[in-house]
């Protein structure tokens, strides 16, 4: 940005002080700018907009194995809003969101503040250690945790056996959602920590000095200066988490191998859409489900943004 501005100035200086040449150079600049974003837009168009439009189009048809394709208007959508499998899935990821996101963000914030305080020894090692799970592909993470949760031979089960304690049924129907929450926390705490930590590093340190001069304690500085200062970063992580929660797919899909009956084929809306498209061969209905899910995510993300903006305006 800075370079661009300087170039404009230079050009302005060298060219006659009339308006016309300036406009030409600006035009050129705009053209260059569009040229630079063009590759993105081509891919965005081909890989997002076109498939999205196609899926939307598909969702207005019904295809039967016998009888072929027919236009069905909003039939797939009315079916979806009354489909218990879809609604239960939505409810489940809603519960997941309410339980998982606060735990994850609280821990991320805590770790970020701890690292930022400069009171942690080997801070770089610790930071990397917390971040590493995010570098593990979700598929590998789910398989690994699946092994750890194993009811017969998993380390936790063996420890319980050794201690003579009751085993925790990680993969039983009532527990498996919390087992998934644990996996997702493990994966994403480090990621969110890094975002918050980066925001913390950008706070001017003279604010802290001023606070210390005024006699504020470290916790007080964290509470009154640091946390308010990283609000935008926190909001960003909340929005990412809302989107991530509703798109939950990898972890349940892979844990199904271990717990095929605790996690059914419509456990999360995404898993349901996948089953519909690839097992039931009902890709039209799957498209409608995916669209509805997209709308739910958009509305919720927008609501989060709006509510935080209002607070900001109020303060």
């Amino acid at each position, binding site marked *: 940005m800075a370079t661009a501005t300087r170039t404009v100035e230079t050009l302005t200086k060298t060219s006659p002080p009339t308006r016309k040449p300036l406009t030409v150079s600006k035009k050129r600049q705009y053209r260059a700018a569009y040229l630079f974003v063009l590759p993105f837009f081509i891919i965005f168009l081909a890989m997002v907009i076109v498939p999205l439009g196609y899926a939307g189009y598909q969702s207005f048809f019904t295809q*039967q*194995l*016998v*009888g072929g394709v027919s236009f069905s208007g909003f039939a797939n959508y009315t079916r979806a809003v009354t489909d218990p499998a879809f609604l239960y899935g939505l409810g489940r990821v809603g519960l997941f969101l309410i339980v998982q996101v606060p735990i994850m963000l609280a821990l991320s914030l805590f770790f970020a503040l701890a690292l930022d305080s400069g009171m942690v020894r080997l801070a770089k090692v610790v930071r990397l250690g917390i971040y590493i799970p995010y570098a593990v592909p979700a598929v590998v993470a789910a398989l690994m945790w699946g*092994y750890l949760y*194993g*009811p*017969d*031979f*998993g380390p936790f089960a063996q420890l319980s056996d050794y201690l003579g304690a009751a085993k925790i049924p990680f993969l039983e*129907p009532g527990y498996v959602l919390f087992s998934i929450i644990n996996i997702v926390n493990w994966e994403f705490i480090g990621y969110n920590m890094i975002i918050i930590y980066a925001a913390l590093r950008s706070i001017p340190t003279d604010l802290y000095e001023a606070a210390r001069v005024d006699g504020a304690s470290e916790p007080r500085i964290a509470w009154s200066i640091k946390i308010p200062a990283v609000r935008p970063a926190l909001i960003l992580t909340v929005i990412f988490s809302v989107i991530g929660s509703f798109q939950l797919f990898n972890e349940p*899909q892979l844990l*199904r*191998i*271990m*717990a*095929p*009956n*605790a996690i*059914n*084929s*419509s456990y999360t809306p995404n898993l349901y859409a996948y*089953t519909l498209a*690839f*097992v*039931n*061969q009902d890709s039209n209905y799957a498209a409608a489900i995916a669209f509805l899910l997209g709308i739910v995510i958009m509305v919720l993300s927008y609501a989060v943004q709006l509510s935080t903006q209002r607070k900001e305006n109020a303060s």
Partner: protein
Amino acid sequence: MSDTPFTRRRFLGTALGASGGLALAACGGGGGASTPAPAAAQKVTQAQIDEAMNKDTELTLWSWVPDLQNEVDLFEKKYPKVKVKLVNVGAGAVEYQKLRAAIKSGQGAPDVVQIEYQYIPSFTLTKDLLDISPYATPEVKSQYPDWVWSQVTNGEALYGVPQDTGPMGLLYRDDLLKAAGVEVPKTWPDFATAAEKYHAANPKSYLANLAPNDPGHFVSYLWQIGARPFSYDGTKTVKVDLASEDAKKVAQFWSDLVAKGVVSVDADFNTAWYQGFSNGKYGAWPAAAWGPVFLQGSAKSTSGKWRATDLPQWDASKPASGNWGGSTDAVLKISKNPIPAAQLALFINTDQESALKLATEQFLFPPSTNVLKDPKFADQASPFYGGQKVNAKFAEIGATVTPDFAWLPFMDFVYSNFNDTLGKAIADKTDLVAGLQKWQDGVAGYAKAQGFTLA
């Protein structure tokens, strides 16, 4: 991908083949593979075949059989002008998804493709498989038992060359059963008594496991008792009869054992289950003919302690068995080289050298009697099974599999729905007969929604 584990699929292979051409009369009765029986496909002359096989041709073959290249090499040696590109795009459901996508897009589909028996109808429904009966000589049919042939034919049309099968027997731990003072059960009532006695004597172990995620395994029990839960006329009519009296009898039998806690209900084909074999959690495994080699690989430490015998019987005077798994090589209609493609599918599975290789090197259980009888296969004694001739035992069982077991053209859904209905009842240890009814309702509902007529 979702329900059937990769590891098992690797073992469900292929098996048989010859060459030549003549439309064959198939055994009657709604066969497994179905499509409106077309007007008898036109016979192909030997001259036409010779001409096609001597032209430069490139074929693509999709299969997940390990080391199938060995058999492909034999084919290329015999027909040097035909080049075969062997691709493994994934096993089972993964492959079918890619296949459907390729067929729909009209690009990248193979000429020959491995398909499991129960999925043939879902591809004949969409008219994607080529009737290869014009290319199969009478010797092809004559080497297969009726029940196998009925899996790949509909009327006169032949939709796949059988590659391997999985007749059901019982593998058991000789040492553990003896230690518990339990005799090898010959009938299912014996089995129930034995299961109780065994678990009482060895509380950490179970005589059997009923997997809540394995519809194929459960269906093999239905097959054995004589239930015929599915059929498809090739056009619009299907039969869904999962809650028949026979099927209920099977469900009730296992329901009692599950309720008593004398059989385990672990998901199968995952790490915990494999480990269960190594450390004696399971005293026996009602398994298909591909099971013995599979077990050998996953429970090495128990070598010498296992034996193979017949599946327990409902009526000991009429020995019967079911089938679990196995697959075929089919030719796609969109293949531009139908003659060489059909020859490839036939050669791999019916050329004696190739079929024997599949059976003795890749350990696919052969459906062809030519291979089953071959001393190189039948006389193999297995140290893992205390020197027992396990192949011969399963060959004997294979002859008792009952014929005319048919499938629906949407087994993906049927199997996936099992996990949410009957499988759930197994995992939750609730009434299996009620679970069976839910499965019936789920499948019948889907059939109706997809526009089928229920017979």
